[in-house]
């Protein structure tokens, strides 16, 4: 009887201890928001064992390879992600918080590669309008999820001390020969799906250096709660790794200055009357981004902006007799003309030529290289300020997409003045002619083939697991079918070129 009593007491005390432990755990994860998640289709949450240590860059960006990413959060980190974004919103009025959270990442492809990366940095991406919470909330309750663009940072060191093994191990890590990788959700009403990746491909085929892209299907795993997060565009970040890959390093190991030029504090028009605060190093903790943000060689006490300001001085010498030659002394003109020509065909109204937005400038050894990015409003879909998706625009002039913000087309100082130059127009029109030729780079077949490929790889899984975001693949019900846009644009350009003797 005594033994029975003793055993019962031990079991009871263990039970009570266990309850106490559970209570403590619960308190640790207490947050300002509810942790009641909506139910989603269960998807296998346990990642298979890794088969490889790394996957080649070429494999990641091979569109014909099916790719899947499982992003695993702890519940605490996922809640912290939301908390941080909400706190940022409370302070600055947008969700553009770049605080990095730890996640584990599993990559799986149809070539048998399974790559497991633990302790990877995760942050959301996007501008004031496109960056949203990854969840839908009613009050403090999470009632659903929504897509938002995000970035994985494979070499983030979190709070580890410099020189510690954790720091050096993470700092030296790359994956896919990249330090970071961007995931961009596809606009849910663009049933053509592949618009942005094809726009990048068109630029690259035109000989313009810009990001490589591909696609992957994404799952979030929040401690067992699996969210089929949808189809995402994978975009190679434009950063120091990008610069080294495409431009190489100098003899001393240095690289030049890379500026991200976007319409933030003002349009990135390259006029010399920009506000002082528009040039610098962006710090998200300030609550705003600079229009001309230095992205390399910036982690020094006194960053040197002279490469940029010298270029601005040159670009704004508009009264010289030979503006084209002057600017050609520093701007890599052939690549710029290719970019202007293909950009005109792609027809993004949110680019440098139309809206003083969305490009990088790379300065090295007295040369400046133009690098376009962000092309989701393209090829007959999206923002339509010209009402015909820009099909009938003049081929060799500047026509801003947002006139209300500009005093005159002269504000587009570089492009406007170059189009005053016969030399530039010859170069530019030549490329327009080349790209729109029957066998030219600006081809609907490229779009169609990519669409069919991506549909065959991902559509069934998107439907089966009821993924967030775009699930409709339809070339015909797009706002303007890409086939129509490309054929009309080519015809219009060829028509205008023929009027110029081409």
């Amino acid at each position, binding site marked *: 009887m005594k033994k029975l009593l003793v055993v019962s007491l031990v079991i009871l005390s263990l039970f009570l201890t266990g309850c106490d432990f559970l209570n403590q755990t619960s308190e640790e994860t207490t947050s300002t928001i509810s942790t009641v998640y909506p139910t989603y289709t269960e998807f296998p949450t346990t990642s298979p064992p890794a088969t490889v*240590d790394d996957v080649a860059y070429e494999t990641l960006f091979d569109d014909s390879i099916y790719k899947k990413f499982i992003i695993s959060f*702890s519940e605490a980190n996922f809640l912290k992600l939301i908390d941080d974004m909400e706190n940022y919103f409370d302070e600055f009025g947008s969700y553009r918080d770049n605080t990095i959270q*730890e996640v*584990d990442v599993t990559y799986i492809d149809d070539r048998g590669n399974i790559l497991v990366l*633990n*302790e990877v940095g995760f942050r959301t991406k996007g501008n004031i309008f496109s960056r949203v919470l990854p969840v839908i909330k009613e009050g403090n309750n999470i009632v659903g999820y929504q897509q938002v663009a995000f970035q994985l940072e494979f070499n983030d060191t*979190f709070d580890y*001390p410099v*020189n*510690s*093994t*954790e720091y*050096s*191990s993470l700092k*030296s*890590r*790359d994956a896919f*020969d990249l*330090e970071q990788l961007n995931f961009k959700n596809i606009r849910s009403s663009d049933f053509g799906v592949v618009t942005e990746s094809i726009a990048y491909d068109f630029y690259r085929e035109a000989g313009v250096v810009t990001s490589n892209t591909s696609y992957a299907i994404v799952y979030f795993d929040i401690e067992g709660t699996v969210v089929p997060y949808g189809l995402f565009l994978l975009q190679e970040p434009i950063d120091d790794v990008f610069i080294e890959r495409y431009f*190489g*390093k*100098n*003899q*001393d*190991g*240095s690289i030049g200055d890379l500026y991200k030029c976007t319409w933030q504090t003002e349009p990135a028009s390259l006029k010399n009357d920009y506000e002082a605060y528009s040039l610098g190093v962006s710090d998200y903790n300030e609550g705003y981004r600079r229009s001309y943000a230095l992205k390399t060689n910036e982690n020094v006490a006194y960053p040197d902006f002279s490469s940029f300001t010298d270029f601005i001085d040159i670009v704004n010498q508009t009264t010289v007799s030979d503006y084209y030659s002057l600017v050609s002394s520093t701007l890599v003109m052939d690549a710029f003309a290719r970019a202007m020509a293909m950009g005109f065909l792609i027809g993004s109204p949110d680019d440098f030529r139309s809206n003083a937005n969305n490009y990088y400038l790379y300065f090295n050894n007295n040369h400046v290289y133009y690098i376009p990015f962000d092309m989701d409003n393209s090829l007959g879909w999206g923002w339509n300020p010209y009402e015909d998706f820009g099909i009938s625009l003049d081929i060799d002039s500047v026509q801003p997409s947002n006139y209300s913000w500009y005093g005159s087309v002269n504000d587009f100082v570089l492009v406007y003045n170059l189009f005053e130059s016969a030399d530039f127009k010859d170069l530019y029109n030549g490329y327009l002619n080349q790209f729109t030729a029957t066998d030219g780079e600006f081809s609907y077949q490229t779009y169609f083939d990519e669409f069919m490929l991506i549909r065959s790889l991902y559509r069934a899984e998107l439907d089966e697991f009821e993924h967030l975001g775009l699930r409709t693949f339809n070339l015909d019900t797009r706002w303007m079918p890409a086939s129509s846009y490309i054929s009309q644009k080519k015809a219009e350009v060829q028509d205008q070129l023929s009027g110029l003797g081409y």
Partner: protein
Amino acid sequence: MSLWLRRIILIVLFTTTLGVVSVYAYYHQEDYEDVSEYINLRDQSDDYDQLFDNHNFKTFTIEFTQTTFDQMIANMQAHFDIYGDYVDNTMYPVNLIYTDADESFTVKEIGFRTRSSTSRNLPRTLDWRDRYVYHQTSFQLQFNETFDYADTTNIYQILKTREVFNLEQLNFEYSQIYDGDYDEAMISEAFAHYLYERAGLIVANASYGLVYLKIGETIVSYGFFTIIEPIDSEFIKNNFNSDKGLNYGDLYKVTDIMTEGDLRTDYEEYIGVDTDTYRFTYSLRNNTLDGTRMTHEGFASFINHLNDSDYFSQYYDDIIDSDLLARYLAIAFLIGNTDDIRYNFNNYYLYFDIYTNRVTLIPFDLDSSLGFGKHLDLSGGYGVDYDIYFNLDDASPLITDFFSVPELRNLYEGYLSQFIDGFFDYQEFLTMYLDAKSLYENVLVNDHHLGNKIFDTRNSEWYFTEKSINVISQLQ
């Protein structure tokens, strides 16, 4: 039961108990030492040859008790918390199980410590979800470590004089990551040692093998390591002559740990005998008089002669083995490691002959070689187009003196040409690479080893080709 029977049973029980207790007490008395298992009776010369035979598949399993391993991690972390690095040179007791294609043997209670100053890692950390993460780091096995045994004990005497593979110590180097990449060729450092040897230099022997850590019951496949013979008193004995009293000359290890090891006259505050907390650029490694040695006459004389270029030009062959120096400079240029005396005032030993004080230079630390690793040419060109002589305005006097003597310059150029015509050849590299790949790659993959597993020749063919073309072009 009868009384006698009970007495007999009691007596038998008593006797048996007494016997058991006596045997137990005998084997557990405090001064009992069964030390035979610590003695190494193997054929050391044969083991040395096997160890450095690149065709011989080798594994090294290092057994820690869980407590010992945890203590090592704690001590290294504590050192980091105070000093900002993991340079804790405490020796920890481990067992070594060596296995090769022919045999396997165990060496009990040897010393283990991690190595290197800047690239030393904690072998184990915790990640954000409190999972163990293991990291490669370079380490040393010390076969004659005596730990805390009293010098009056038998085991102390056995351990103190123990050698394995004819060595007192053995170094293990892991392949570090530079610019996000492993040296996927894997054998570069060992091949660099091989090239030095082919060039006729006195240099440490090197090979490679797989390492496993057994921590308690956990086995960690620790990866592919280059194994390198230490340059110490044993090395000197094996490669240089002694006097009649079996004494050898002074051996200095030169690194840039305090200042550049440039051999200029301002050396005096940078020379000495290392302690646990203080390390010198010109570090005396033998004849230290138990750490009390204060004078360095031979070294001082060498520095004075070196910094008098007129004297050097007349008597260079009395000062240094100039033929070996010419060979060294030629093969070092071809190998292209810039973390050396010519480019970075670093990573060499100086041995002073016991009779003549004539110096022999012995290079070490060759992990950034043959188109991989840390290099002064940061463009990715690995200096294939460097000037064949030197490119620093403030080069060491040893380098400037050498190249200012026409005969030595000619000798150097001749060796460059000879080595390119001879053994500085991508096919030689490829042969060693393919041998290593066939021996180790499958095991690295199947056992999920840390570090690089898949062999790749990376840019090595380009490096050999471009380097040779450039040198030949300059020689013409």
